[in-house]
């Protein structure tokens, strides 16, 4: 299993090193970038097939037996997230060919993006809490540089906020790791799961649980901790925003799901009750924030926050079906969010601006773009037959079954507000008459070469096709998500895979 589990981490890392060697040849870097991301996608698919067949798979790095060495472990959730990472990485790299200015491309964009993909896959696959911290840092340092690449004023200001918040979160993460090690003497997550079950220190355990909730809550951008996200995600070029929006908050959500299904399950009434409160507020506040925005990228940033609320809601309900629905939501939302940010880049070229008041009449000039915008936007709002609808109906169903009527009501309210936000944006950008001066900007659009248009439109069309397929043929992916949810609720398979059956 070692090769399957290490390949999604090593392959993009190797590609990053190669791309750095080709520093002066941007065209070479591009193809190394595509190859690296495609290799990650392919190895992710192999890993997913293996977890489909054999259940949870694990390997001990350097053959140090768990819990002493570092374990890599993949269940259905991890493997699917790796596949999505590779897929979005590939789409974003391909979009960058024509969608990123040459100056940024030649200052290490491709190596950094590949390092980011490495860090994300590492975070999904590790079975060790301290190693998770290290992968977070790998991911963060790459994201810091990607965010500032180009050095515009808004980028620098956004980056300062992003860096500060993430460093605070890292320090808290380190503190909680220290406390956990001091109390239990282990950092292997499977071993921790067993030791925390037997530990008779409810106060310390809840303290650590809350510390990690804050840490991963900052990364995931949940309700009171999300302010850094709309202040920074719209500042960098759209390719960078797209990969951040699709994957980085999802790593936080993944870490929340992992810790609150594997480690902190002794006092579900308290911890998961807090998660439900946080989820309800995140959904509504994110959606309300989105309605008020004029800049489409800022609007989508708020929708990233709102979507995190739905995933945390599934975790807070804490049943296999609710988790399954939340994971399905997670899978489709990662793809839809990246697509929307890439589409906002296309809108910028077609209409000359990101701001709704400066846009208009794009339906006349670019009907294809109108469809590419509408499909993922409707999926976010949860309109049938889109994938978002399937996920939300699952969550609402699970919420009603669990008697959590308030959070269900909030989730429906947030859906309505999201729908109004995206329909206002669509109508403003595509339907209303073009404002004065817009026709001059259209000239720059025509100046874009055919190659640039192909390299930007094809990845977006492929992603939109996947979003549509996830809705129309939801069954296989939904089954995968439900199986993954069931696996999370029954961690014995995870423990057996990591620690062996003869414990």
């Amino acid at each position, binding site marked *: 299993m070692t090769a399957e589990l290490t390949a999604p981490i090593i392959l993009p890392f190797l590609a990053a090193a190669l791309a750095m060697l080709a520093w002066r040849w941007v065209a070479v870097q591009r193809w190394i970038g595509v190859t690296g991301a495609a290799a990650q996608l392919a190895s992710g698919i192999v890993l997913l097939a293996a977890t489909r067949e054999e259940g949870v798979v694990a390997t001990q790095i350097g053959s140090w037996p768990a819990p002493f060495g570092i374990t890599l472990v993949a269940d259905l959730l991890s493997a699917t997230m790796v596949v999505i990472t590779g897929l979005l990485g590939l789409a974003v790299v391909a979009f960058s060919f024509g969608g990123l200015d040459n100056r940024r491309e030649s200052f290490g964009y491709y190596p950094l993006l590949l390092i980011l993909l490495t860090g994300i896959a590492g975070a999904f696959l590790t079975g060790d809490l301290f190693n998770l911290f290290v992968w977070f*840092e790998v991911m963060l340092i790459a994201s810091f540089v990607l965010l*500032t690449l180009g050095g515009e004023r808004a980028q620098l200001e956004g980056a300062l906020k992003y860096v500060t918040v993430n*460093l*605070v979160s890292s320090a808290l993460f380190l*503190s909680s*790791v*220290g406390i956990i090690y*001091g109390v239990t003497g282990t950092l292997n997550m499977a071993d921790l799961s067993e030791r925390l079950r037997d530990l008779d220190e409810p106060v310390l355990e809840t303290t650590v649980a809350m510390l990690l909730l804050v840490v991963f809550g900052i990364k995931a951008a949940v309700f009171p901790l999300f302010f850094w996200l709309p202040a920074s995600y719209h500042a960098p070029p759209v390719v960078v925003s797209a990969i951040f929006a699709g994957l980085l908050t999802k790593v936080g959500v993944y870490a929340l799901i992992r810790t609150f299904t594997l480690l902190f399950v002794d006092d579900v009434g308290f911890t998961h009750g807090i998660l439900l409160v946080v989820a309800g507020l995140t959904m509504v506040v994110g959606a309300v924030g989105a309605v008020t925005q004029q800049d489409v990228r800022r609007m989508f940033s708020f929708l990233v926050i709102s979507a995190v609320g739905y995933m945390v809601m599934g975790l807070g309900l804490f049943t296999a079906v609710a988790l399954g629905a939340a994971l399905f939501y997670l899978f489709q939302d990662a793809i839809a969010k990246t697509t929307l940010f890439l589409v906002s880049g296309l809108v910028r070229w077609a209409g000359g601006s990101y701001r709704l008041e400066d846009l208009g009449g794009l339906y006349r000039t670019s009907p294809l773009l109108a469809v590419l915008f509408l499909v993922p936007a409707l999926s976010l709002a949860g309109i049938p037959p889109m994938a978002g609808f399937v996920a939300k109906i699952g969550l609402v169903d699970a919420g009603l079954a669990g008697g959590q009527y308030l959070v269900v009501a909030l989730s429906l309210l947030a859906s309505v507000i999201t729908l109004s936000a995206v329909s206002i944006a669509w109508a403003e950008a595509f339907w209303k008459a073009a404002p004065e001066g817009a026709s001059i900007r259209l000239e720059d659009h025509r100046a874009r070469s055919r190659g640039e248009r192909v390299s930007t439109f094809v990845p977006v069309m492929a992603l939109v096709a996947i979003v549509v397929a996830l809705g129309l043929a939801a069954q296989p992916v939904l089954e995968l998500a439900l199986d993954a949810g069931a696996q999370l609720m029954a961690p014995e398979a995870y423990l057996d895979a990591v620690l062996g059956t003869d414990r």
Partner: protein
Amino acid sequence: MELILSILVGVLFAAALYTMLRRSIVRLAIGLTLLSHAANLLIFTVSGVSRAGAPIIPDGRETPLIGSSDPVPQALILTAIVISFGVLAFLLVLIKRVYQSVGTDDSDELTSTER
């Protein structure tokens, strides 16, 4: 010894937060440095302070001697120090660039991303 170190950790966390809440972005960097020191010292303290010897396995034995000190927290701290060194170096350059581009070190002036 644990008591003194615990108090020191608390003081460091408090000082870090106070410094970070000041308006100057240079103080922000100092605050973040203190914060990472506080976290490292916390790991050191909670995993037990001892004067025991190095955990080196003598010839002819399979396990370290009873009472030797635990190497894991030190490895964690070492890793964390290296990471925070890299990140703080980046932060210092970022702060310099922000200062050059905005023309002030007052964090209340950093509002161009809020519109």
